[in-house]
């Protein structure tokens, strides 16, 4: 697997670390626990098809990335910096 880091160009998968769904970008503003927090932290769709994931180019530039990819074909539609992608 290879990912095209927006800063470093296409790199081997071994340079990247996976975090999970890009939902993590949209952190609820409330300090009290609510159903929003459940969705934010735990509830995941697990689609056969397109997903948006967070990866860090940990062994590279350190940038956090939003990767849009297909879990069936493994094709990668888009890689962009996570910075500015969230609603927070």
């Amino acid at each position, binding site marked *: 697997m290879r990912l095209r880091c927006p800063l470093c160009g296409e790199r081997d998968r071994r340079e990247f*670390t996976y975090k999970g769904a890009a939902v993590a970008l949209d952190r609820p503003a409330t300090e*009290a626990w609510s159903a929003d927090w459940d969705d934010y*932290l735990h509830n995941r769709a697990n689609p056969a098809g397109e997903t948006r994931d967070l990866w860090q180019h940990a062994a590279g530039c350190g940038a956090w990335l939003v990767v849009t990819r297909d879990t069936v074909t493994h094709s990668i539609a888009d890689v962009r910096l*996570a*910075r500015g992608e969230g609603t927070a």
Partner: protein
Amino acid sequence: MRLPGRGRNAGAEEVRFRFDGRDYRGRAGEPLAAALLANGVRVMGRSFKYHRPRGVMTAGSEEPNALVTVGRGADREPNVRATVQEVFEGLEAYGQNAWPSVHFDLMAVNDLFAPFLGAGFYYKTFMWPRAFWEKLYEPGIRRAAGLGVLSGEHNPDPYEKAFAFCDLLVIGAGPAGLMAALAAGRAGAEVILADEGPEPGGRLLSEDERVEGQPAQAWVAVVLAELAEMPNVRVMTRTTVTGAYDQGTYGALERVSAHMARPAPGLPRECFWRIAAKRAVLAAGALERPVAFAGNDRPGVMLASAMRSYLHRWGVAPGRSVVVFGNNDDAQRTARDLAAAGVHVAAMVDARTDAPEVAGVRMFRGAVVTGTAGGRHGLEAVTIRCEDGRVERIAVESLAVSGGWNPAVHLTCHMNGRPVWREEIAAFVPADGAVPGLAPAGACAGEFSTRGCLEAGLRAAGAALADLGMQAPAMEAPEADAARYRLRPLWAVEGRGRAWLDFQNDVTVKDVKLAAQENYASVEHMKRYTTQGMAPDQGKNSNVAALAVLAEATGRGIPETGTTTFRPPYVPVSIAAMGAGAQGKGFAPERLTTSHAASRARGAPMIEAGLWYRPSYFPQGDEDWEAACRREARMVREAVGVADVSTLGKIDVQGADAARFLDFVYTNTFSTLKPGRVRYGLMLREDGHVMDDGTTARFGETHFVMTTTTAAAGEVMAHLEWVRQGLRPDWDVRPISVTEQWAQFAVAGPRSAELLDGLIDGGLDKDAWPFMSCGKVTVQGIGGRLFRISFSGEEGYEIALPARYGAALFDELLTRAEALGGGPYGMEALNALRVEKGFITHAEIHGRTTAFDIGMARMVSAKKDCIGKAAATREGLSGEDREQLVGLRPVEEGARMTAGAHVFAEGAAHVRENSEGYVTSVAPSVALGGWLGLGFLRNGRARHGEVVVLVDHLRGRRLRATVQDPVQYDPEGVRLRG
């Protein structure tokens, strides 16, 4: 049988080699199988299940029968295909899966029991009684089964792995691959041309053909000469592309030195390549398929194309007389070539009623071979059933078989592509777009004529170049044989006797039919039931035929019955090659502190902390670890100790929003911290569990230095980057690790200030350095940092200087400490000191503990949001049911505790359901005597004073202990405030 003067290698040097203890002579560089055939050796292996004698079937890496063990010492390699292993002076090889030898194998009695060992035998027989499986059946089966065996010793050979990059990867250097590489090379693309063989050329080296008006081999030489001149083309021989992976990544196994008598020192045996290619052309060719008929596994029966390879390439005939049996024009080609080489072609048996003749060869049209006869050493006669039903027996030494060709679709299956059936060639071809960026060309795509392959290679290169935005060169495919492929499908010949489909796993036509009869009618079920396709050749020689037999048995067409698919690797890849470089020191990096050499010089055993190596203790005389630990801990409590703490993560945080940022990542508040002061911080994960803890010092309004634990330094750095990039992108905060810049030492104990007073330029004014203060200092003019913090419970400081001075500083600190009755202390003492104080490490904050559990719920500030704050309030993450941090002290003074023990209430049975907690840390205690521990206990804070039972099932220990406050020494913190 050697044919003097024949073969491309006719001029090769003669070398000596051994097989099964006998000496032979062969031509250097030829495959072992060719050399054995030249010496009249026909039995080269034994089958897996029935131990039937087997001869070589093929001339390629797909060989199912001729598997041998090469070498004799620790590096001996089993299951080497004799068709791939090149002969060199002194080569030693052995037959395998046989005892005492492949010529006479006592295990062949299995074959006599064959009627009882049919498909599904294991499943049916060894199911009951259940308890017998582990003790009796499995060990017995394991002993009897298996092919070659490993030496059991450490493999001393070097292996290698490497990365390569190209615009175009061409897989296979036959006519299609050579054309593709030539066109792309001329266009200026970066090309890697990888071929399994010792020299590129593919089938062109094995056939008597003309390309561009010259012998095919001459054309190959011209192309290779041109490729060799191109700096943008890399030709990799003896390199099998083993797998196709995502985004144009390919695995390839290069056999670097297995063909050499005396490899240069350091030369790897194999190299496993990861190749990243923007585009790839699959020119892997096709594999000829056998026909199933009774006794088709007898040594002397060989694929027709293999026979031509041995003839043209290596100057070897498999016998003095040959019968050719086929269903396509390769039968005629084979008969013609053999006859031209002076081999007696006794008959040609062609299943087609309209088969063409070969001059001077007796012809059987519309006929089939129904059986073979022979002795232990191979074929002596074949039985032919003529079109009119007449049966004829012909005495002959070898039989060439061609059942047509299967495109080598394997790599196109590696990303879930399913090959599709093409009726006119009765074979599977790659599905369109099966692997993104990879285009099959030539025989692997079902185009079997040489001219067609050359054109396909050129076309595929043109398409790849267009994708790459490059201009294809103006060139045309050369003239070559363009004959149409004509065949009549023939999979299995009806008749009595076992007809083999999967030679390696001894699966017969009857086995597949039995599977169908027992309703394993899906191809995937049939494979598992019969084990067809599960041997090392992974069904390369049998999948399609077995599918065809299953289709017939179930009354369906082949495409309706299923398809064939293959997983990586295309050929077996040794673990040594995949894990190359990971032996010994290559397994993981070693991170060494600047005090490492000095600690080792003092005899300190090192323990690993992540990748770091830290001194465990500094033994004096014949002290064991506990004695040293107690002495070092006492030294800190009574005088002064020095410990290297450089391994703790140090993160410099600057920016206008640095304080706000720390407020957000820590549960407690840092924006109120004054410059020059240090504060302990607790960091949660967003799910409300503790991530890490440590102290953070404020050096300026917008400048902090955070400390993490050694274990979590990397995790915390990634987390901070995540928060700033992902969650708070608008804040001005700039974190960077400075861990490696500073050598930092803890100086702890009642005489620590005295030590530092002599060391620091201008001395240490204790009043200016209250507990939890920080600042800049100089030591002999060198700028450093001083922190007044304590992980021991004593008055303590940490002093940091740039790492280049680390070794010198450590020496200086030890000299001064020893003058004050102190010295170095290691991890054991450090642990003992912090356990007495109830200070936590990742033994306690192990990922499942909350701030509540460790008694720090009040550290989650109510005045601000922080990571993990919402989740920390969840039901179930606090309360009486939680296991809470407690101190534990044995009731029996001096009893030794173990970490990992479970905690039970007195009187409760020591079973899992009753476990109320566990012990996380234990240590000898100097201050209180005996041993102390920390652990978690359900509702533990309310149970101080209670006696519980600690049971370590693993070590078989139990003892009674009193539950206490985790802070068991100096709870008021008088000592650390000094």
